[in-house]
């Protein structure tokens, strides 16, 4: 059946390839923190889609500000139960540069940030400061979460403001070592609330 776009613009969108705006990057859900313990996306709840509808999902985290100083922003995954405890192995490295141009200028693997077959959270950032102008922002790609054959890969890239006035750029990757589908994703700080910030979930058609 013809839709509004097709009628107004005399333009037939290719079935299953783009949405009505012609964009393959489709905004599914926006969550905004307000002294929130976590921000959680669950398939089928509150209009969230996190299933086989899309092959790839992208989370964009914007100006995530912690209530507590010196904490890490984290992610975890739900693999069929109600808990966010999917077994995972991750890798993580970061670059850092201090505002004074002398204390820190580094690129290194961070063994304190990775996970080896653990069920705990994976770090997205480090030593995040909670000054009024301090936050972290970044992206998380989640690949093929509905697969019941393969492990589920994810990649993360975050920019942040270390409490010691250091910019850091963190690169993480990992896989949920389960063949159960991933149907929920939860973001939280390692301690304290998410004071403010926005996370947008996109599906890539």
């Amino acid at each position, binding site marked *: 059946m013809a839709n509004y776009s097709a009628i107004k613009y005399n333009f037939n969108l290719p079935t299953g390839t783009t949405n009505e705006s*012609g964009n393959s990057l489709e905004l599914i859900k926006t969550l905004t923190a307000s002294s929130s313990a976590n921000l959680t996306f669950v398939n089928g709840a509150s209009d969230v889609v996190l299933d086989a509808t899309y092959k790839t999902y992208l989370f964009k985290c914007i100006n995530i500000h912690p209530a507590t100083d010196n904490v890490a922003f984290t992610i975890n995954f739900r693999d069929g139960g109600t808990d966010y405890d999917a077994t995972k192995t991750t890798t993580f490295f970061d670059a850092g540069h201090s505002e004074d141009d002398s204390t820190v200028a580094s690129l290194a693997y961070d063994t304190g940030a990775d996970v080896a077959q653990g069920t705990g959270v994976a770090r997205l950032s480090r030593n995040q400061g909670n000054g009024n102008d301090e936050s972290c922002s970044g992206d998380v790609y989640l690949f*093929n979460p509905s697969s019941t054959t393969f492990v589920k890969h994810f990649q993360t890239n975050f920019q942040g403001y270390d409490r010691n006035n250091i910019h850091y750029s963190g690169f993480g990757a990992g896989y949920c070592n389960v063949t159960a589908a991933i149907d929920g994703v939860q973001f939280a700080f390692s301690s304290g609330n998410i004071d403010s910030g926005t996370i947008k979930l996109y599906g890539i058609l």
Partner: protein
Amino acid sequence: MANYNAIRYNHDFLGQGGSLVLLSTFTSDGSDATVTFGDSIITDAYDEYLFIFNSIHPQTDGVFLTCQFNAVGAADFNETVTTTFFQSYHKENNSSTELAYSTSDDQAQGTDFIRLTATVGSDADQCASGTMRLYNPSSTTFVKHFTSEVCITQSGDSIMDLFVGGYINTTAAIDEIQFKMSGGEIQAGTIQVFGVS
């Protein structure tokens, strides 16, 4: 000159049109020696092309996901490239980690297929996923840059995140790209191509 894809899909919808447009999807039939996106896909319609790999599963254990390019009017996938390659790595048993440049995986003015990963495992649940970007392939002035980040599960039960960058050292336009494993077939997975407008 605008082609069919540009006309059909690059509609601006009063300035609210798409910035990421799906051009083609390859889905493995279980026995694919190569995956080629040709000159009907890689055109001058977009300045940037995004490839997304989802759960690429090899037939053979310990092989690399690779790619090469073909210039307009040329015959083979053997363009001259210079690349960089580094990796972040962690084993499931926590016995080792690494952040390192890999001199054995890069190329210096080579024409071989370009390694986008280290060795991917072929266990039933092992695969490779990630993204690759190709910039301005239709340029006849500049070399053509590309970047990729692909994470893999290895047969030794580890996560490896691979970062590759490089340029195709030609001023000829590029209108084809081919992906394949360094040995054996692709037995599962999808590769999508998007135009970024």
